[in-house]
C-alpha cells in the first residue's frame, strides 16, 4: 500500500484497465484527482479512503451539476453518497465518454428513477424538471445553503423510505419555483408530455425498456451525458 506518486502497481492498473473504460494513465489521473479532494484523508487511510459525500461534491466537474447528489447516491454502495476510490473510479468510468450508450442509459435511468421502483413515473419526471430548473431558480433567489435544503427536500419529498424531511415544506418549495421561472402546472404538463412521448405500452409510466428504447433515439444524449475528469 505504497503512498508514492503511483499508488497502484502495474498489475493492479492492468486490472483496473480491464474493469473500467479507462486506460492505465487515466486511472492514475482519476486517482490523483480523487486524492486532491481530501488530501488529509489520503494520508491517513492510504490509497483507498472513503470520502464523504461533501468531499466528492467539491469536485469542480460535479459542482455545477444539479443532479450531483443523486449521481453519488446511485453510485455509492451505501446509498448515502459516500464512496471510496474504487466506487469513484467506477462512477467516472461509466460517466466517461468511452462508456457505451447502453451503460449511460442505465445510469441515466437510475438517476431519474427517484423513488427507485424501476419505473420513471410522472412524479419522477416532475422532479427531474425541478432539478433542471434548480440552477436558474437558485441563481435568481437563493443562497447556497437554502439551495441545498431545497434539493434535499425535493429528494425526500416522495420516496418516504428515505431520510427525515428537512425544514422547508412543500409549499415553500412550490413558492420558490413559482416565484421564479416555471409554474407547477407547467411542470405537470411537461411531465405528462414526456411520458406520452416515451411510453410505448401506454401504461402511464416509463419502464426501463421504454426508456432504453426512447433514449437511444434521442439526439445529444451521448454527447451531453458525460463527465470528463
Amino acid at each position, binding site marked *: 500500500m505504497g503512498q508514492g506518486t503511483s499508488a497502484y502497481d502495474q498489475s493492479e492498473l492492468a486490472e483496473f484497465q480491464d*474493469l473500467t473504460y479507462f486506460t492505465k494513465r487515466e486511472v492514475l489521473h482519476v486517482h490523483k484527482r480523487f486524492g486532491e479532494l481530501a488530501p488529509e484523508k489520503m494520508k491517513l487511510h492510504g490509497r483507498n479512503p472513503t470520502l464523504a459525500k461533501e468531499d466528492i461534491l467539491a469536485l469542480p466537474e460535479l459542482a455545477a451539476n444539479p443532479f450531483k447528489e443523486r449521481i453519488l447516491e446511485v453510485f455509492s454502495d451505501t446509498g448515502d453518497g459516500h464512496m471510496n476510490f474504487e466506487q469513484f473510479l467506477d462512477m467516472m468510468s461509466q460517466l466517461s465518454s468511452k462508456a457505451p450508450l447502453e451503460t449511460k442509459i442505465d445510469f441515466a435511468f437510475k438517476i431519474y428513477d427517484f423513488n427507485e421502483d424501476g419505473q420513471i413515473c410522472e412524479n419522477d419526471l416532475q422532479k427531474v424538471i425541478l432539478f433542471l430548473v434548480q440552477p436558474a431558480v437558485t441563481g435568481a433567489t437563493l443562497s447556497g445553503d437554502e439551495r441545498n435544503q431545497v434539493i434535499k427536500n425535493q429528494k425526500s419529498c416522495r420516496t418516504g423510505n428515505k431520510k427525515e424531511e428537512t425544514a422547508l415544506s412543500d409549499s415553500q418549495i412550490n413558492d420558490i419555483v413559482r416565484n421564479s421561472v416555471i409554474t407547477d402546472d407547467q411542470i405537470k*404538463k411537461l411531465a405528462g408530455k*414526456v411520458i406520452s412521448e416515451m411510453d*410505448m405500452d*401506454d401504461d402511464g409510466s416509463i419502464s426501463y425498456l421504454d426508456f432504453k428504447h*426512447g433514449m437511444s433515439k434521442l439526439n445529444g444524449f451521448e454527447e451531453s451525458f458525460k463527465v470528463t475528469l
Partner: protein
Amino acid sequence: MNFVKGLFDSDKESESGSARASRKKMNEDFEKADKYNNSRKKTKSGDADIDGVPRRPKRSNKVDPMECEPRPIEHSIPMENMDYSEERATMPPRSKSRAVMLPSGLIIGSDDDSSIHTSSLSSHSSDSFHPKNKLAHMIGLEVEDVDNGLTEDDRKTSSIKRKIRTLDGAGKRKSSANLGRSVSAPAQGKLSLAERRTLRRAEKVGVVEKKSLPFCTQIGYEFTMGVQKSVRKIREFFRNAQIWGRSIKEVEGNLGSGVSTYFRVLRWLLKINIISMVIALGFIVAPGIWMAERHTPDTPTLLNKEDLNCTNPNFVEGDDTAADISNAILQFLTGQGWMEGTALYLGWYPASNITRTSGTVEKTTYNFPLAYLVVGLLYFLVALIFILNNIARLFKKSAAEKIETKTYAELVLVGWDFTINNKKTAQLKSATVVKSLKEALSNDAQKFMKRSYKKEIGLIILRICTNGISLAAMIGTVFLYYSEVVQYTSESAANSTDMCGEKIDKSTFEDIQLGNFSTEQLSAEVAKVWSSYSASIIVSLSNIIFPIFFEILGNYEFYKFQSTRIAITMVRSFIMKLFNVCVFLYVLYQATKYSGDIKQPWQTDNNTLQYNCWENYIGAQLYQLCIIDFIVFCSSLLVSEVLRNVLINNVKWIRARVEQPEFNIPKEILDLCYKQMIFWSAMFFSPLMSCVAVIEVIVIFYLKKTSALSNVRPPQKVVLTSQSSSMVNAVFLVSLIFVFIFVGLVIFQFKPSQHCGPFRGNERIHEPLGFLIENSGGFKTYIYDNLKMTAVTISIVIVVLLIIYYFKSLAASRNLTIRLLRDQIKTEHVDKQFLIEHIKSQITGKPLQANKKGRDGTISRISQNSNGDLGNKKKNMTIHRYANPTMKVS
C-alpha cells in the same frame, strides 16, 4: 391462496416495510454464509452483453422454484429459503399489483418489459427453449415455475454458481430496490467494481469454470469477445491520439456541449487536412523537390523560375530593400510575384518522371504527372470518406425511426448538459432549458391556434418579400462581384497587359518613396491594388455582412418556431456562401478557359504576357482569397468579440445597451465550411495549400477558444438540436460536391499550360490517367472508353437513382411496420392487463370489473375468446398474436 390475496390488498404506494426488512435480513445471512467465497461472475460494467457466462436456472433446495430468467446477465435474487409470499410481497408496487399465481401453479408476473425482453432475449437462456416457457414468452408473460423441461445436468448447478448468485443478490446496493428491478429493469443490477474484480481474479485462478457452455457456443463467445476487445483496443488507440481533448473539455465545461460541437468540427477538419497534407507532402512535394534538385537548369523539362512570374516586368529588383520587402509582403498576401515561382503552385512542378537507368534502358519508376493527378483526386476521396463516415454513424442512429420527434423527452431527459462545470454557465443553461421548455409548450399551443386569413395572407406576402430581398441581396453581390472582377479582367485582356493581378509599378513605387507623386497617381495605385484584391474582398465582406443581415431578416418573418427561423437563416447563409464560392470559381473558370485554348500562349514580349500559367493564376487567386478571408476573420473576431467585450466591461453606457456577444454555432460552422471549401478548391492547384489549411485550422482553433472562453456567453437559443449534426454533414457534403465539380471540369475540359506544371505537353489534364489505362490492357481501356461516353454515364446515374429510390421505399415500409408494431405493443399491453384482471377475478372470486384504462374493443375481443380455461386462453392469445395483421407487413 392467502398470500395472493394479501398481495393484492397491499398498499400500492409503498413497499411493505416488514417484508423488506426480512428480505434484507435474508440477504445478510447469505452474505455471511458466503463470506469466504470469492467466486463471482465476470462482467465488465456496461459490457453486459459480452458476458460469456449465461446463467442457468438453478434448482433450489427447499422449495422448487425454477425461475425463468429474463436475461442471462441478470443477477437474480437468491431464492433459497424463501417462499413465494416473500418474493412477491417485496416486489415493488407496479409489478406486484399485476403478478398472479395461476391455479395451475404458474406464477404470472405481468411485467411490462418481459413481453419485450423475454422474446428478444430468450435465446440466451437455455430454459427458455422449453415449449411451456416459450409459450409463456409468446404471450408476454413471465412464468416463474417451469422445471420439467430441464435436464438432469441443469439441475446439478454447481455450488459456486449458486453462491455467486447469492453474493450478487446480497451485494446489491439496495436490495429492496433491486428486487423490484430484477423483474422490471433487467440491466439494472450491475456489479460494482470491487465485485467485478473479485470475479476476474476468481476466473484467473479457475474457480469459476466456463464449462457450462457447449463447446461451439463457447468458441463463439470467445471469438466475439476477442473481436470486441481488439476493436476496443484500436479505438482506444485513436482516442488516446485525440488532440485538443483538454481544450474541448474546457470549452464544454464553460459553454456547454453545443459550442464544443464547433470545436469538434474544427478538430475533424484538422484531421482531414492533416491527411491531405501528408499525402501531398509525401507524393507531390517531396518527389517534386527531389527532382528539381537533381535536374540541371538546362534540362528542357525544368522551368525557369522567372518564366513563371507573370509580374516579371514589375518585380522590384535588387537595390531598394525597403521596396523589396514591402513588395514581397504584398505579394505574399496576394500569392503572386515571387510566390509563383515556388512549390506552392502547380506550375512549379516538373513534368518529368523519376526514372531509373538500368543499363541502357530507362525505366519509369515514378510517374509524376499521374501521381499529381491521383493525389488531386485523393483529397476529395479522403474528405468524402470522412463525411460519409459521419453520415453513416448518424444514419445508423436515426434511420430506423423518423415518425415522430420527441421534443419534450429530449428537452427534459437530455436537458442537462453534464459536461458543464461552471456555476454561471449552469445557471444560464438552466435558464435556457426553462426557456425552451416554455417555448415548446407555447409552440404546442400555437400549433392548434389558427391565424386569421388576413394575418395569414399578410404573413405570406411578408415572407415572399423577405425571401425576395435575400435573393436580391445575393444576386446583387454576385453582380457587384462580376462587374468588378470580370470587367477588370476583360479590360486588361483587351489591353493585353499583364493579367496576373496586383501590379506595383516600380517607378510609382519609387515616386512614393521619394514623396513626389500626384494624387492621381495615388488613386490609380489604389485602384490597381483594389482591383487585384477586389474579388477576395467582396467575397469575404459579403460573408461577414450577409449572415447578420439574414439574422435580422429572420426576426421580422414571425416564424412560429424558433428552430424554423434558425434553420432558414442557416440555409440562406449557406446558399449565399455557396453562391459566393461558385461565382468565384466560375469567374476563374471563365478567365482561364480562354487562355487554356490558346495555341501558342507563350509570347514573351515584355508587355504581352498571357496567362502563361493559368493553373498558377487559379491557385494564386484562391490563395489570396484564403488569406484575405483569414484576415477578415481575425478582424471580425477582434471587433465583434474582443473589442465588444472590452467595451462592455469598461464603458457603462455601452453595457446598458449592448449585450455580450453570443456564440452563434450554425453561423460559425458555416464559416468553417466556407473556409474548407476554399481549401478544397485550392488543393489541386497548389499542393502546399493543405499545409496552409492545417496551420489556419490550428490558429483558428486557438483564437476562437481563447475568445470564446473570455468574451462570449453560451448560446441562448435552442440550436437545432435534433438535426444540427446531420445538417453540418450535409453542408460539408454539398460544398465538397460543388468544389469537386469545379475541379473535375478543370481536369477534363482545360488544356494545361504548355510551359509549366506537370501536365505540360498534354492535351488535357486527365491524360496521364488515360495513358496509364490504355497501356495496361484491353479490358481496362474498353471500360475507360465506355465510361467516357455520355450514355453510359447517364445510365449509371439512373441506376443509382433507382437504387436510392428502392432503399427509400424500403425505409418507408419499415417505418410503417414500426408504427404498426408499436400499436401492437399497446394493444398487447391492454390484452395482458385484461388477462390479469380476469385471473384476479377468478382467484379472488370477485366479478370482473370493466378495465378503466383498457381499450374496449380489445377487451371484448379477448373476452369472447376466453372461456376460463387457461390453456385455451393462452392458445388463443398466441393465435391472436400470429394472426395479427401487423405481422404480415414485416
